[in-house]
């Protein structure tokens, strides 16, 4: 069968390419080159996930590892040193290369020899079967999420509680960075000639940014129907302000009066939305004197209330999933904007504020 062979050839090429890229990234002294090698590895991995039919993972992986991760590292390298002081010894380098080669060959041999047994194990299959049977199934309405997109349903409905906590952790990290940079306010006057990139870059960014916002909202609001969802849509949305930040410069945000405080307000209202959606059915039930659960989406046994799952012309709404996705997209996008606004403050200025403050206390 030609297609299966092709499939394996594609996966093998991606795997090999990414191993070489990772090796080069580790031994490279120039940090900028190392970042780029890791971007190559990420691109190949994204393709690998695509071949494994995991579009949700691709949609999360690309923004994080091709977009945000290199951006954060580049912002940080700019503030520190680009070249590593210590050069790796020739012997260590060869040993690393040889070891990774041996590892790749050994793993390939084990897999080719059916060394990892029957995959996937039977009980995982049962779980998958359960999710597939119940994620969208009007006949068993009392245990179904009523949305056709499996990943979003599992994340926000079947295991909603830990997702809420994960979201909280991500935003605590952002709160920590805001707290760390408290008092560091930098404003400048935007100068069209001096700041930012060339005229061509600026004009195209002007046109592309609204389109990106449209596409990002589409990904977020169709998260219960097609791959995507709150995080994916939010991180696609975050490209827009990031492009503006890099192409137009930070001072452009000062000119249009978009401040960190506004981003914080958007993020907080997104977070509040997630919280409210989690409690919405419960709050309604209290007023109607009926039993209900936290994070309830559809009616359950003994808890008759639930979100609507069908629109006017029969289109699926996914109940609380839609609201969760929209709010999470807002929160994720604004969170990234805050992070990059903080990172883009000139290093000299930050140092003068932070170090100066400490000296003052002593």
């Amino acid at each position: 069968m030609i297609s299966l062979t092709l499939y394996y050839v594609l996966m093998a090429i991606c795997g090999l390419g990414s191993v070489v890229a990772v090796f080069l990234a580790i031994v490279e002294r120039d940090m900028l080159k190392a970042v780029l090698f890791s971007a190559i590895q990420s691109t190949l991995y994204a393709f690998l996930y695509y071949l494994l039919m995991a579009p949700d993972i691709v949609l999360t992986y690309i923004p994080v590892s091709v977009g945000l991760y290199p951006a954060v590292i580049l912002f940080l390298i700019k503030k520190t040193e680009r070249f590593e002081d210590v050069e790796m010894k020739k012997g260590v380098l060869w040993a690393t290369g040889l070891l990774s080669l041996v590892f790749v060959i050994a793993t390939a041999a084990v897999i080719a020899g059916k060394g990892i047994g029957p995959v996937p194990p039977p009980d995982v299959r049962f779980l998958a079967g359960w999710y597939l049977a119940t994620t969208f199934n009007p006949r068993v309405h009392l245990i179904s999420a009523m949305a056709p997109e499996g990943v979003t349903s599992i994340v926000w409905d079947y295991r909603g509680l830990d997702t809420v906590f994960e979201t909280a952790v991500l935003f605590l990290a952002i709160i920590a960075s805001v707290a760390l940079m408290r008092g560091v306010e930098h404003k400048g006057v935007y100068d069209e000639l001096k700041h930012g990139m060339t005229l061509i870059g600026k004009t195209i960014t002007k046109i592309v940014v609204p389109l990106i916002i449209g596409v990002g909202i589409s990904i977020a609001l169709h998260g219960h129907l097609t791959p995507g969802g709150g995080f994916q849509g939010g991180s696609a949305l975050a490209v827009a302000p990031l492009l503006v930040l890099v192409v137009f410069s930070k001072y452009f945000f000062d000119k249009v009066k978009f401040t960190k405080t506004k981003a914080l307000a958007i993020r907080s209202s997104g977070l509040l939305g997630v919280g409210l959606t989690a409690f919405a059915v419960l709050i309604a039930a209290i007023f109607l004197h009926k039993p209900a659960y936290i994070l309830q989406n559809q009616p359950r046994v003994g808890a008759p209330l639930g979100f609507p799952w069908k629109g006017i012309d029969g289109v699926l709404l996914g109940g609380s999933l839609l609201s969760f996705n929209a709010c999470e997209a807002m929160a994720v996008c604004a969170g990234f904007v805050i992070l990059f606004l903080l990172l883009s403050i000139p290093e000299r200025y930050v140092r003068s504020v932070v170090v100066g403050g400490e000296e003052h206390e002593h």
Partner: protein
Amino acid sequence: MDPVTNWVLVILGEILVSIGVFFDVVAAIGMLRFPNFFVRLHAATIGAIGGAFVPLMGVALIAAGCDFLGKYRWFIAGAAAVTGVLVLMLAPVGSHLLAKAAHESRAAVVEPKVVDFLEEDKAKEGGEQ
């Protein structure tokens, strides 16, 4: 839609994809053969326009004609077309910004060259200041 329209769309799309694949290979060969970064930019342009925009439009046409995909085929067609248009708009800006940065920071040298007026004009401005 009737089968004839489907066939026409699919054949048109396949022609575009074939052209795209041809230029993609040409661009890849160019990326390997050309001597320096600035000349490779031209190979990259072929890769982005001939090798990505044209086949994406072809995929959009093929998908629009593939009725075995069901109503979701418009999803493929639409997303492929939007991606193609975005590539058409973004790829040149990407190469322009990269070229400017490479020239300004001297990360890549313009060698071999017949002439470099940008370098000369910059040197002149530097002398005047």
